[in-house]
């Protein structure tokens, strides 16, 4: 908790970082609202007229099927957070584990295997990899998540590996070894906590990547299978805009932009705070 308040204090130094945090928090509250059943519950009801213009009943108008665009856009906040949180947390955790073990046992076959695996996964163009995973896991609703986690961990893995290799030569690790602590415990209790800043920044970066990827995959038909997301709304809108109906497109793209901008500002501020040398990379 103290660490959290410290992060907040340091973030508040940068105005744009604070703005990012506020934007992300507002969206997070909306996602919670959907999750507990207060917001966006009528996203699938098709009870309006087709392509209604925004008015008092339909705040953002309706789509081709007469569904309420506002409800759909709001419900999609939850979809975005669900994908973002699952993918960013799991891929960062996977990257941290593999990277830490590889760095701790550097120049052994374990390290070689992890580095090789990361190289292999980075060599397959991402959307093709997702296509292949979706093809292999036909009908499995988590195919998209699995594909993203399986590829997004490599960046975190490389960073953590390099950091662990640096940390393990430091005095406090050497002395922990000298007093005979088991290696696994040193790694877990003394080395990994020192890579926290990398993990925090990477979680934020992969969150953005996951949401952006969902949009493309949903458009390609490989993404969200049931429910609604900004990606699906944009995919619907590709037909509507040619007929001059822009409400679906505007609602989804503006909300998507705001959330991504919030997260990008937050990531930058985190980077500036914890890793000033790498900042702006």
């Amino acid at each position: 908790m103290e660490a959290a308040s410290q992060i907040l204090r340091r973030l508040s130094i940068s105005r744009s970082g604070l703005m990012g945090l506020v934007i992300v928090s507002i969206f997070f509250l909306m996602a919670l609202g959907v999750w507990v059943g207060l917001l966006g519950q009528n996203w699938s009801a098709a009870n309006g007229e087709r392509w209604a213009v925004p008015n008092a009943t339909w705040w953002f108008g309706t789509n081709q099927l007469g569904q309420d665009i506002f409800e759909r856009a709001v419900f999609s906040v939850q979809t975005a957070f669900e994908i973002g949180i699952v993918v960013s947390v799991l891929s960062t955790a996977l990257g941290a584990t593999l990277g830490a073990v590889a760095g701790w046992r550097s120049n052994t076959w374990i390290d070689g295997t992890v580095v090789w695996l990361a190289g292999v996964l980075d060599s397959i163009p991402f959307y093709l990899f997702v296509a292949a995973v979706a093809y292999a896991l036909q009908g499995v609703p988590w195919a998209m998540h699995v594909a993203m986690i399986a590829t997004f961990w490599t960046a975190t893995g490389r960073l953590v590996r390099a950091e662990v290799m640096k940390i393990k030569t430091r005095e406090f690790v050497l002395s922990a070894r000298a007093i005979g602590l088991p290696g696994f415990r040193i790694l877990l209790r003394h080395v990994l906590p020192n890579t926290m800043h990398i993990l925090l920044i990477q979680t934020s970066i992969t969150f953005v990547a996951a949401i952006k990827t969902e949009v493309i995959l949903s458009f390609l038909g490989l993404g969200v299978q049931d429910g609604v997301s900004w990606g699906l709304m944009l995919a619907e809108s590709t037909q509507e805009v040619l007929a001059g109906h822009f409400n679906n497109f505007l609602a989804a793209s503006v909300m998507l932009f705001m959330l991504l901008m919030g997260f990008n500002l937050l990531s930058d501020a985190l980077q500036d705070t914890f890793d000033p040398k790498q900042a702006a990379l």
Partner: protein
Amino acid sequence: MPWVLSKLVHGGLLVLGVTLISFSLMVWFGPDQTYTLIGKNATEAQIAEVREQLGYDQSFVKRYGRYLSDLFTLNLGSSNSSGESVSRILQRTIPVTLALMLPGFILGNVLGIALALLATWKKDQWTDRLITGMSVTGMSISFLVVIIFLQVLLCTPYGLNLFPVRGWQVTGLVSYFHYVTVPTLSLVFITLGYNTRFYRAIFVEEAGKDHIRTVKAYGASTMAILWRHVLKNSLVPIITRFMFTIPLVVISGSLLIESYFGIPGIGKVTFDAITSGDQPVLKAVVGLTAIAFILIQVLTDFIYRLIDPRIV
């Protein structure tokens, strides 16, 4: 010489891994192809025959070996849906994709380098802040949103209505520009933010080094410093970026752009193969692009050596 050898071994191991993954995902664990290949009411014997042709009765190692040798001898089979041979399809579509994607890819990098140099020159002044702010904004806009927006703006009566909405009827230079402009603008727009930010970070770091301070002390002009020292010394990361993003931008980008604009390139073919489950096409595209990517990596290592002999 051992350096060359170790690079080749490294590349070979990567190829092995990539093909192993694509084989496992698409062939070994992939959907059973038997019933897509034979008609209704097949007899037991026909089914058994097709299964034998597909190699379903053989071991993992044997089938993987066959997959590898097929890939390396370019014996790629033919498409399940059109019957056209896969190598013909590749020959037909790859030139279209390159003609479609390369202008945007190159322009996105050149503009990114130019803006990054400008930002480095005016570091911490409003020009720099504007460029940095714009690139974060650009990074927050989805590819799909950019494409839809530019299409409405440039290709429909709701906007300027200057270019065709979709398609690729290229017969000469004029029609080429007619069809390539909107996809190129989309690609530049979407890569510019990332490129500018990446190059700026590299140039700023280079500009902070001691030898630059020395050159400054000798009274060289800012332009000369940026051009002769900062840019030249940043060649290695620039080339890395360029080489490593080619396959990602060209393949992943074409998947979206071509299926959106209905352009008959490799991306559209891949997209159709994904939606119809056309295994021979998918196998070839995934396997070959991954191998091409690894070749590029090995090639990049050789180029480094040429530019900077210190690199081992």
